[in-house]
């Protein structure tokens, strides 16, 4: 028994105008200072205008949003009492807004305790619209919520199936001006979602097609999108949501466990971190059996004579793509020194060990194995454990 959760998806040119159909008295738009400065917030406010709602803007979400930010935003929502929450941004904004929404509906809950086990009873006060302004996180199509515990320097993989957005607005105009580095970082996050979503232990017939097609779209379009091609950019925007639907229902795996851990300690951007680890985790998982790399490699027209060959082909294809869009392949290239790695290795391993995504992998890494994986990723060495 399992569920497939999805928002209603509004996509294509002009999708943002769907906001004009929303009715109610008050809407709260959650975003960040950059999107406000770039004028994207103004576009959203204009699109909301036909509904005639009073609007509160919360534009204080930081990258890797903290539990504190979520608690503060929820308090503003409690004071304003919106019927709609509109999240405009990348994964950080959308995840923070989901957390605020939950605490607004359930002020009795602690942000760090948001979980997929208890029934929350959302939508008694408000419904939720997610409008991604990057092409990768997939948060607009998932119920996952990643928040940072700044005291513990740890990203928490939280979530509730009820926190799936009501609407996801996938409008290519909102990513037309995305900087190349952000396109590369977030596009590789989408690829990691597709690969991990296809190979996680919760993968199913309902998620396989989404993950496979998203992976194909990323390989076919990311370099051109990074170079500024508009059609490729739209395909990447769609691929990110498809991958979100896929992994959101089948979960991510070890590269996300390690990526969350790295992000919590060294603040490497999420997509850059998870994609950096992905090849190492494929090398690790294929040695444990029970993987599906042949199926994935075949769908991508890569060599797939057996699982080992398929894994090696995937690793090479992922690294070639990362190289093509100027991404680091090792922790050293990502700016982490050997001394920093060794000084923080205990915390990195502890946090990766108990990340909610680590346990979805086909092979569960021990403390010692995680140490080796982090060290291999620093040196750029093949994983042979």
């Amino acid at each position: 028994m399992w569920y497939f959760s999805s928002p209603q998806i509004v996509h294509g040119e002009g999708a943002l105008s769907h906001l004009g159909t929303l009715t109610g008295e008050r809407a709260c738009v959650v975003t960040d200072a950059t999107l406000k400065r770039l004028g994207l917030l103004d576009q959203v406010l204009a699109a909301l205008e036909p509904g005639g709602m009073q609007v509160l803007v919360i534009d204080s979400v930081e990258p890797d949003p903290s539990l504190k930010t979520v608690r503060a935003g929820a308090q503003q929502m409690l004071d304003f009492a919106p019927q709609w929450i509109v999240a405009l941004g990348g994964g950080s904004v959308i995840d923070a807004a989901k957390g605020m929404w939950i605490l607004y509906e359930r002020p009795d809950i602690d942000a760090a305790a948001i979980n997929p086990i208890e029934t929350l009873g959302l939508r008694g006060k408000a419904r939720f619209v997610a409008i991604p302004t990057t092409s990768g996180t997939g948060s607009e199509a998932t119920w996952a919520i990643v928040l940072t515990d700044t005291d513990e320097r740890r990203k928490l993989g939280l979530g509730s199936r009820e926190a799936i957005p009501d609407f996801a607005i996938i409008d290519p105009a909102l990513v037309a001006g995305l900087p190349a580095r952000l396109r590369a970082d977030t596009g590789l996050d989408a690829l990691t979602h597709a690969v991990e979503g296809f190979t996680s232990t919760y993968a199913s017939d309902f998620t396989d097609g989404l993950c496979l097609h998203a992976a194909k779209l990323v390989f076919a379009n990311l370099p051109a999108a990074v170079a500024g091609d508009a059609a490729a950019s739209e395909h990447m925007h769609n691929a990110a949501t498809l991958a979100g639907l896929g992994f959101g229902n089948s979960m991510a795996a070890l590269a996300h466990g390690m990526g969350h851990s790295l992000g919590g300690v060294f603040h490497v951007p999420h997509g850059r971190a998870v994609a950096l680890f992905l090849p190492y985790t494929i090398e690790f998982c294929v040695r444990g059996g029970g993987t599906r790399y042949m199926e994935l490699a075949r769908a991508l027209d890569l060599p797939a004579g057996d699982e080992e060959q398929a894994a090696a082909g995937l690793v090479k294809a992922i690294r070639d793509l990362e190289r093509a869009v100027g991404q680091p392949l090792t922790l050293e290239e990502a700016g982490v020194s050997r001394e920093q790695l060794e000084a923080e290795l205990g915390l990195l391993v502890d946090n990766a060990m108990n990340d909610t995504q680590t346990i979805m992998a086909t092979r569960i890494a021990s403390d010692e194995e995680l140490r080796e994986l982090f060290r291999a990723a620093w040196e750029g060495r093949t994983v042979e454990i």
Partner: protein
Amino acid sequence: MTIPFPSDAWIKAMMVDLNESAAYLEAAKNWEGDFYFVVNPGGTLSEPVTLYMDLWHGKCRDAHAMDDPAALAPAFRLAGPVATWKKVMSKQLDPMQAMMTGQLKLTGNMAMVMKNVRAAKELVESCTRIPTDFPV
């Protein structure tokens, strides 16, 4: 030799297994909180059985069947029908999915759970290692 589930002997066997598990010690080193495992009737099990386990920083300090479940107030409670326990313990049902679909009901400090999911996984791994005789 198999051990009947649920029983005092079974939970004590699990305590021995947990305390020998390096994987559990690693994963649960920050875990604080004792547990009631409530096994509801099914098959030849006619009455609910409550098993107690005191889990503390990767070790199990105490484990026994409860004659009177009202006698203690543990931090966590995991409850479900014996048939569901059997599915989880024989690896036919993923424990997280069992909890996320309401087939097993978990109550307690959920922040502790969300920060220590691997500990929960290793706890269930221990269950699967006990040679068990189920009433269903």
